[in-house]
């Protein structure tokens, strides 16, 4: 099993947000997590990636056979956990190329490999850019600076393709995307998906799930999963609305 979250309780500033969250994810699977605002979906992403300020008060997060609670964000990332941010951060002065090169080589260093040569790196960039239809030169573009919402999300998927994670969490990647960008993003995800990796797709709407077809759909409410089903659950949710989940 790739990821096994057991009875996870997470607080922010003393306020409990996740209240006994359980989930099992195997290699090759795509899981969708749906639910109304403020139900703990983004907190879950923050807890798995090790963001400071999100305190695990109870429970365990097992990933590749290790309980990663307490592990640094960079070590989790280098172990293959990737988060596509709901709000990708702008970093003025840091070019995407320099950023990605540092990231790729950090992972290689973690794995005991030598840094990637410039030629190989440029080739990899070009190949992965094509996957998400980014045509411009990225050498002189600063990370996310001056990007539209759609470009930022495409850039997240590009970074994901560069780093080839085992577990990718997509936090509302569909929000703010027009239908073309949505198709490109989904296309990238589907190309990257293999029997060796898994995706956790956090979304409000079932629209994204027309393009990225999940094996499991979980409905979250008040800090835990209240219902799990297959992709038809997403359709049911779309018809009945989130009010319905409160009574589950």
């Amino acid at each position, binding site marked *: 099993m790739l990821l096994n979250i057991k009875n996870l309780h997470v607080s922010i500033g003393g306020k409990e947000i996740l209240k006994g969250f359980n989930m099992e994810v195997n290699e090759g699977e795509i899981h969708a997590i749906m639910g109304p605002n403020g139900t703990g979906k983004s907190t879950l992403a923050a807890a798995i*990636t090790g*963001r*400071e300020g999100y305190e695990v008060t109870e429970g365990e997060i097992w990933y590749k056979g290790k309980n990663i609670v307490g592990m*640094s*964000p*960079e070590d989790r*990332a*280098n172990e293959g956990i*990737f*988060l596509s*941010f709901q709000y*990708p*951060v*702008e*970093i*003025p*002065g*840091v070019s995407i190329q*320099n*950023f*990605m090169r*540092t*990231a790729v080589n*950090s*992972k290689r260093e*973690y794995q005991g490999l030598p840094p990637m040569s410039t030629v190989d790196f440029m080739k990899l960039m070009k190949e992965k850019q094509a996957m998400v239809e980014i045509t411009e030169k990225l050498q002189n573009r600063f990370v996310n600076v001056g990007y539209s919402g759609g470009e930022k999300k495409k850039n997240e998927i590009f*970074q994901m393709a560069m*780093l080839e994670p085992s577990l990718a969490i997509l936090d509302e990647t569909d929000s703010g995307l027009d239908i073309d960008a949505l198709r490109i993003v989904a296309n990238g995800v589907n190309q990257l998906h293999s029997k060796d990796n898994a995706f956790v797709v956090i979304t409000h709407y079932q629209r994204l799930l027309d393009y990225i077809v999940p094996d499991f759909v979980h409905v979250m409410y008040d800090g835990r999963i209240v219902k799990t089903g297959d992709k038809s659950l997403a359709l049911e949710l779309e018809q009945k609305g989130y009010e319905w989940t409160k009574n589950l």
Partner: protein
Amino acid sequence: MNNQLIIAPNQSREIIEYDDDAHLSAEPKVLEIVLNENASLEMYVLQNVSNEASIRREFKVRQLADSRLKIVVITFNGGDIRNSYHVDLDGEGAETQVHGLYLIDKTQHVENYLKVNHNVPRCTSNEKFKGIMDDEATAVFNGHVYVAKDAQKTDAHQNNSNILLTSKAKINSQPFLEIYADDVKCSHGTSTGQLDQEAMFYMRQRGISKANARILLMYAFAAEVSNHIGNAMLHEHIDDMIKRRLRGELSSCENCVLRCSHPKEYNFEIDYSKI
């Protein structure tokens, strides 16, 4: 000590200076610069002296029509440093750029005083001063841009921004515009903050260590000043010094002729635990 530098009409010069003339006294070193019509000067000054040393620099500039000036002063280290810039734009079409970067820690203190006088129409001035301050370091930025009554079509911009790495580091920043003309484009601004924690997490989520993420953010901040260095070789050299300074690997005795006075190596570790 006073020096004069006069650039003849249509001539251009580039000057690179290691400001190692440090004293324990506070005797100012004054450089008077006159740029004649269509003359151009690029001046790069590196300040890297010991924690006991002080530097007092004054630049007094007079620019005639269509002359171009660029001064970039990078302060890597020094106990007590004061740089004053006084620029008179006396000929139409003159352009001036004054930029400064200060990377200080311990109890170091840096002051930058700036006065730019737009005395005639159609001149441009641009100043960007940036600082990264650790420990109990303190700095002063005092920028004053004056636009005379008839100096129409003036284009003047100044900005000071600072990253304070600790709660004990302090900046006193006062950008000031005094405008008597009515057809001008002027701006001024100041900002002070900590390292962007959102950006830190974003980088660490991509596998970049906390230490490297900090260096990358600080370097990106500093590069906005060093990017103004037109000389490619010098630019590369200074960028390398900035990176080493931020990593705590740059010695204050490097490039200083006063090696004898401070034979011991200084250690400029940045304390990562404070962020």
